[in-house]
């Protein structure tokens, strides 16, 4: 084993430059090349850096376990490339190909080696394959992790975007809810509504659910609790835009908004708020 490892590392060190050139031209010729996302100079730099670290790590004569400290540099660099590629929109195949395409130039050089019996050659290829596959798997795992982080961040952004509390009039807030309401989102939306009520000193808040796809018991309960909390703070809530299907589901579920004011449309709710505030909308006299 040690003999095999040593031999591979010798070849890597002696033929580093040729392997590098072969590897790079292989990558440049590959169908999974994404020059639209990464420039040739950048690819050259990344490949050079990776190969340097790879060759250095191989000197440790440990080609079996990439989780040891000798491989720290390689793992870290691969992780950083993967993360940046995941953000740029590379596919998992394209990301894995970066490492996997190192096999071909490396194996070619192993084959050209003189004075090696076929058993040793197979052992060497086996070792190298195993090593490179591990690195490829690592980059896939990192890719996955990178994507998950992106999804998490986008969810957070969506959550923030989807909670716009709009001031409709002095003393009237509108919260237009859109999409699917789950328990966690409803809770965040409602907290932000209550905070806005306080910040703007608005006595009336309209919760418009025209854009809500469905309301289940839990969400209805959250809405009711929010209205109770708003009332405690000294504000009134009006719910508008309950769609026919939702009204049906709610009756079916036995969920009612009780004594809470509900209006069919946002316009009706706004008119009701004006009434409560003692305001009237008057058409100006037509000018002659």
């Amino acid at each position: 084993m040690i003999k095999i490892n040593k031999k591979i590392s010798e070849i890597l060190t002696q033929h580093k430059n040729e392997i590098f050139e072969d590897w790079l031209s292989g990558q440049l010729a590959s169908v999974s090349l994404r020059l639209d996302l990464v420039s040739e100079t950048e690819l050259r730099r990344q490949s050079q850096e990776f190969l340097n670290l790879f060759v250095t790590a191989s000197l440790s004569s440990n080609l079996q376990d990439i989780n040891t400290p000798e491989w720290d540099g390689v793992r870290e660099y691969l992780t950083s490339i993967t993360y940046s590629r995941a953000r740029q929109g590379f596919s998992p195949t394209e990301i894995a190909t970066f490492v996997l395409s190192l096999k071909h130039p490396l194996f070619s050089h192993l084959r050209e080696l003189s004075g090696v019996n076929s058993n040793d050659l197979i052992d060497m290829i086996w070792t190298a394959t195993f090593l490179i596959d591990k690195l490829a798997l690592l980059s896939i795992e990192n890719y996955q992790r990178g994507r998950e982080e992106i999804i998490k961040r986008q969810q957070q952004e969506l959550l923030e975007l989807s909670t716009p509390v709009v001031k409709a009039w002095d003393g009237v807030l509108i919260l237009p809810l859109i999409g699917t309401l789950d328990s966690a989102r409803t809770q965040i939306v409602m907290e932000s509504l209550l905070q806005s009520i306080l910040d703007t000193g608005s006595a009336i808040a309209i919760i418009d659910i025209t854009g809500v796809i469905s309301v289940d018991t839990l969400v209805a309960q959250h809405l009711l609790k929010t209205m109770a909390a708003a009332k405690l703070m000294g504000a009134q809530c009006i719910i508008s835009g309950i769609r026919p299907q939702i009204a049906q589901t709610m009756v079916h579920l036995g969920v009612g908004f009780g004594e809470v004011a509900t209006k069919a449309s946002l316009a009706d709710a706004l008119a009701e708020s004006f009434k409560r505030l003692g305001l009237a909308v008057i058409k100006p006299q037509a000018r002659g």
Partner: protein
Amino acid sequence: MNTIPILKLGEYLLVSIQVDMHDRLALQLQDELTSMLVKTKSRGVLLDISFLEMVDSFMGRMLSNIAAMTRLLGAETVVVGIQPAVAITIVELGLTLPNVRTALNVDAGMEILRRLVDFSDQKGGYECQQE
């Protein structure tokens, strides 16, 4: 021993609770407020609890009690400044605070007090004319 100051503002009493109250202090406030109400013949009480970081069932009961007592003494109480987190917690706890009027801030609370007092004045005036 700290006490909670009760300020007289025209025909209203203004109380701002700015400390985390232990039970004895809450009961003491209840006592002082009612005797002050009688002494000054005030028409309303404005209770500002915007600094209060929580309202548990004991505090909730105190607020209900104060509202009920002032009403018996011919005055009205408005509680102002309940914070969002506190309001959410009161609802989750299951407290309902019946008969407690609330307003967002001191201005809105004052407005409600004036309306309530005017309303009871009109009612009173009507009854006088009847006789």
